[in-house]
């Protein structure tokens, strides 16, 4: 019994490594494929940020089953905090990351402590409300955040004095951040913490009965998820040089949710692929029609009805079924 679980785990983590390698290879090949097309590299960079954001929501929803309808709150929070800090404190990216993460952990810990005590629907509603509050905050402090116009004139990010200028460098940083985040998510998934989260997702009452501190575990998941989202916001604002309140709008939360649902909740790779596919699709669709929100909404509805596991979820199920046969065959040999 133990032997099968171990081999199963090895198979799965090998699957994770293969996935990581594929994403790394694809990501590394792209700059060569897009040589001479600077716009393509830019689009890919935005897709990478979207992928980190999608992964951050999957860290919460996929792990503990808590559904956040206002994840843009933390994305925007990170973007604004990092933007304001880089204008006032330092433009060093390492300093900014540390300070922004500290701020996010502090605020998300305080808010999350109340939020994660709520179950299902109340949690969903409150997360949506939270994002609206963050949206409103931008306008309350419009003299420092720029209000409707957005936060402009963010100095170029530096790393120990060296300016990060070229799009290729940015692309490498973003790809590196995504790969690190993915590796972290995969590691946690198989670590005791990740196992405990899955137990909560499947049945939080049983998890409590076997002695888990469900509230604390949910809070940890919420804070990690918020931090990763805020990191995505930080990367966005430094890469983009400006940010607008649109980042905090519920449409943005809807998009993040769409990445995760499209890719398959809890599949780790699914949301990342969903984010990339969706960002590219959004770009090409919105170039020939401005009614893309209709297609987007209709697709959302359709996926929830037809393929609740998402596109990647369906593929992953088939893959699991295939790999589940392999150990048996090996045992027979």
């Amino acid at each position, binding site marked *: 019994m133990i032997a099968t679980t171990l081999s199963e785990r090895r198979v799965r983590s090998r699957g994770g490594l293969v996935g990581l390698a594929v994403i790394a290879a694809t990501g590394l090949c792209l700059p060569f494929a897009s040589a001479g097309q600077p716009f393509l590299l830019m689009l890919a960079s935005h897709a990478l940020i979207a992928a980190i954001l999608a992964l951050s929501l999957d860290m919460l929803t996929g792990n503990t*089953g808590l*559904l956040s*309808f206002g994840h843009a709150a933390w994305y925007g929070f990170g973007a604004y905090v990092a933007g304001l800090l880089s204008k006032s404190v330092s433009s060093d990216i390492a300093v900014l990351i540390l300070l922004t993460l500290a701020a996010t952990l502090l605020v998300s810990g305080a*808010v999350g402590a*109340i939020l994660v*005590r*709520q*179950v*299902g*629907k*109340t949690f*969903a*509603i*409150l997360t*949506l*409300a*939270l994002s*609206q*509050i963050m949206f*409103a*905050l931008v*306008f*309350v402090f419009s003299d420092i955040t720029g209000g409707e116009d957005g936060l402009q004139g963010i100095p170029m990010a530096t790393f120990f004095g060296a300016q990060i200028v070229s799009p290729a460098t940015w692309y490498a940083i973003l790809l590196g951040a995504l790969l690190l985040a993915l590796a972290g998510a995969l590691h946690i998934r198989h670590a005791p913490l990740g196992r405990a989260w899955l137990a909560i997702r499947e049945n939080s009452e049983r998890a409590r009965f076997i002695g888990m501190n469900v509230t604390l575990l949910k809070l940890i998941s919420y804070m990690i998820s918020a931090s990763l989202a805020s990191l995505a916001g930080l990367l966005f604002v430094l890469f983009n040089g400006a940010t607008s309140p649109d980042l905090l709008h*519920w*449409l943005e939360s*809807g998009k993040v*949710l769409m990445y995760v*649902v499209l890719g398959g909740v809890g599949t780790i790779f699914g949301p990342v692929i969903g984010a990339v596919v969706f960002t590219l699709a959004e770009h090409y669709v919105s170039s020939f029609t401005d*009614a*893309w*929100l*209709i*297609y*987007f*909404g*209709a697709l*959302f*509805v359709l996926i*929830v*009805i037809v393929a*609740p596991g998402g596109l990647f979820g369906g593929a992953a199920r088939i893959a699991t079924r295939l790999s589940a046969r392999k150990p048996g065959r090996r045992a027979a040999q």
Partner: protein
Amino acid sequence: MLALSLVLNGIVLGSVLLLFSLGLTLIYGVGRIVNFAHGALFSAGAMAGVWLVASGVPFGVALVVAPVAVGLIGVLIDWAILARIRDRPMVDSLLLTFGLALLITGILYELGGRNVQIMPVPQVLGGVISLGGISLPTYRVFVSVLAIALTIALILFLKNSKWGLRVRAANDDPEMGACIGIDRERLMHSVVGVSAALAAASGVAAAPIFTAHAVVGDKILILAFMTVILGGLGSLRGAVVAAYAVGLILVFGEGYFGGQLALMLLFIVVMAMLINWPRGFFGEGRTE
């Protein structure tokens, strides 16, 4: 003086909110669905009302026609879309109505919802009512009276009609209700229809105050969510009390601290409330 005027305005906002949240409570009670698309239906009602009035239909007629039309759309949505996920986990219904909100908002954008449209106050209801030094536009008084009247009518209908009996039965125990022969599908169609019509009715009625555009319902949806949480999810009398509480908190916050901070204040109040009373004012909200 300011305080009294704020109280009156709080009651006006509370009344609109009440009418709007009733639909949310109703659909939650029977279908256990938190309807994220409720705000989009509010916007749809407001835009339909403005369009009807602009094309020469009297305001009174628009106030009836727009909600009926949106109500029928609600029935259609339930029949075509919501019925597909009846027995799925709760998460799916949340995602689905969220997707619907995006879809309806997208359609409203294409129907001219990008621009703010003004609904003129009907002439009969123009002017200002003065009472002991405090003045309130007549139209606001009308909206409050209308919302309260509709609410009372709905509650009486729920208490005294066959339909109301079925709704209350399904609200208390959907499975048992189905066992004693309540056609859940048809009941759900009607409930979603009524709920959509209520959202649209509040949208049309509030259009002269809030104007009309594709996302006019966003803010009121958040306020209504705060309302149903304060009152307890699925609790009708909780929603009644909470609607006025939210209306007053918001108007007082706006009066003393400014518009956006008021929303924050409300959020903090709701969060504080949840720590001790997660089931709302009357302790009868559902937590699931």
